[in-house]
């Protein structure tokens, strides 16, 4: 475990609709680093991000972000904390009423009374950083998936947050757009010292940027370490996940009753 952790999760237990999502989960996100959270689909990776941002609360355990216990925060203090967190949604979640410029300016207009000139300079600076200053007046519907994600990234960093959470940032991107996003994640981390948390499936992409990987399955951290060495740690979870095996600790069959009984054969298990 890390001493200087910006996110410290201890004993997190979450049950949703009778299904245990997290079972006494412990996890630290080191400050100033890029950490990836990986795991099979439906294992609760995005749900974990929602616990970090306070959108969801666990049934037990603590989630500390920058020294604040998130589940115990009042709405005002939670909003104060969120101003220090950038969040990149999987589908970018740009506001469709506004153009690119206004999307990036939105948090500034809502939380500050900066003069228009300064807002313009900040927004253009962020758009330049993601390579889309020329697209400032386009509407979200006119953007490709990769461009929309970069605009969302510009919006997420408009307040220079201490922590950015990327929810599946590589999904649906062509190789060029994927490398652009990878470059941005690395640059933001190195130049601004922003702590980054990636939720992703793509091991090749994660290996290029992440310094630490947590593999989550069955509600727990089943493996952790440097991305290069993690695949060889010998556990059945990593062997299946990184080897892409169809069956293993994560079963191919969704839990179901006896097959023979379901087909109506006599002698099936009750």
């Amino acid at each position: 475990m890390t001493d200087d952790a910006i996110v410290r999760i201890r004993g997190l237990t979450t049950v949703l609709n009778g299904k245990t999502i997290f079972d006494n989960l412990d996890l630290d996100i080191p400050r100033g680093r890029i950490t990836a959270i990986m795991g099979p689909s439906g294992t609760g990776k995005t749900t974990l991000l929602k616990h970090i941002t306070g959108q969801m609360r666990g049934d037990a355990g603590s989630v500390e972000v920058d020294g604040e216990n998130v589940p115990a925060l009042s709405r005002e203090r939670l909003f104060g904390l969120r101003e220090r967190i950038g969040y990149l949604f999987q589908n970018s979640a740009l506001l469709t009423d506004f153009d690119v410029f206004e999307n990036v300016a939105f948090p500034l207009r809502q939380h500050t009374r900066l003069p228009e000139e300064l807002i313009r300079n900040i927004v253009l600076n962020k758009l330049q950083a993601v390579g889309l200053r020329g697209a400032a007046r386009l509407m979200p519907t006119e953007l490709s998936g990769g461009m929309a994600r970069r605009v969302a990234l510009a919006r997420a960093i408009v307040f220079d947050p201490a922590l950015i959470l990327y929810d599946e940032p590589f999904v649906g991107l062509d190789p060029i757009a994927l490398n652009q996003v990878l470059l941005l994640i690395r640059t933001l981390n190195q130049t601004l010292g922003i702590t980054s948390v990636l939720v992703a499936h793509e091991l090749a992409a994660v290996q290029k940027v992440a310094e630490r990987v947590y593999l989550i399955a069955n509600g727990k951290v089943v493996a952790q370490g440097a991305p290069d060495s993690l695949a060889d740690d010998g556990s059945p979870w990593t062997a299946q996940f990184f080897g892409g095996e169809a069956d293993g600790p994560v079963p191919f069959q969704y839990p179901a009753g006896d097959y023979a009984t379901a087909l109506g054969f006599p002698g099936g298990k009750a």
Partner: protein
Amino acid sequence: MTAKGDNVVIRSLTQIGACGLFLLTILAAVPRSLRHGRETVRQIWFVGAMSLTIVMTCGLFVGMVLGLQLYDVLSIFGGTSATGTVVAIAIYRELGPVVTALLFAGRAGTSVTAEIGLMRATDQLDAMEMMAVDPIAYVAVPRFLAGVVALPLLGVVFCAMGVFGGHLVGVTWLGIDNGTFWSNMTATVDVHKDIVNGVLLKSFAFGIVVSLIAVFQGYTTPPTSEGVAYATTRTVVASSIAILALDFVLTSFLI
């Protein structure tokens, strides 16, 4: 919310209860939304001004058909001079506020539901939460207030067009004396009972109900295309029933 086995009565009561709680949430957020005044004005333009065409057109035709029918019936008794009076009272007390509210639910209510539902489905509301912007204060309250402000104004416009339509048919087409049409109307119509209680109070009440239902359905819709489609339909159905039921209750107190 509701289990699959619940019957329609329990589901409806649960929805009404949730809608009532949502109203309290909206009212509590009104002070926080005052800083989004520009958004409220934008929404008044969107739901109010953009509904003017349909409201004016329908108001005109309702007035015209009412004038025609009344002239036909009143001529049996030789009372065609009362056409203007009856057109005005029918429109001010009932048709104006009720038809305007039904039109408003179909034109503006559905678009508000679909807009908020799609914002939910595309994570825009969650994105606002993550940017420390309260979506109730920024999205729900301005649209709610816009409906509450716009509907009485639209009701007045509908009534004006309705009376104009009645005049067009009664006086211009069928030859009722212009002075009789107006003097009978002004002598009989009571400003407080027919216009304040009739048009304005009813429209205000309908504005609250329709806007609440539209915003509630959009805000709580499942984030799927099917969910948004159902929510939009529910807005029209629930609003129509609520408008007509509330109209009866209000009329029984006001008459």
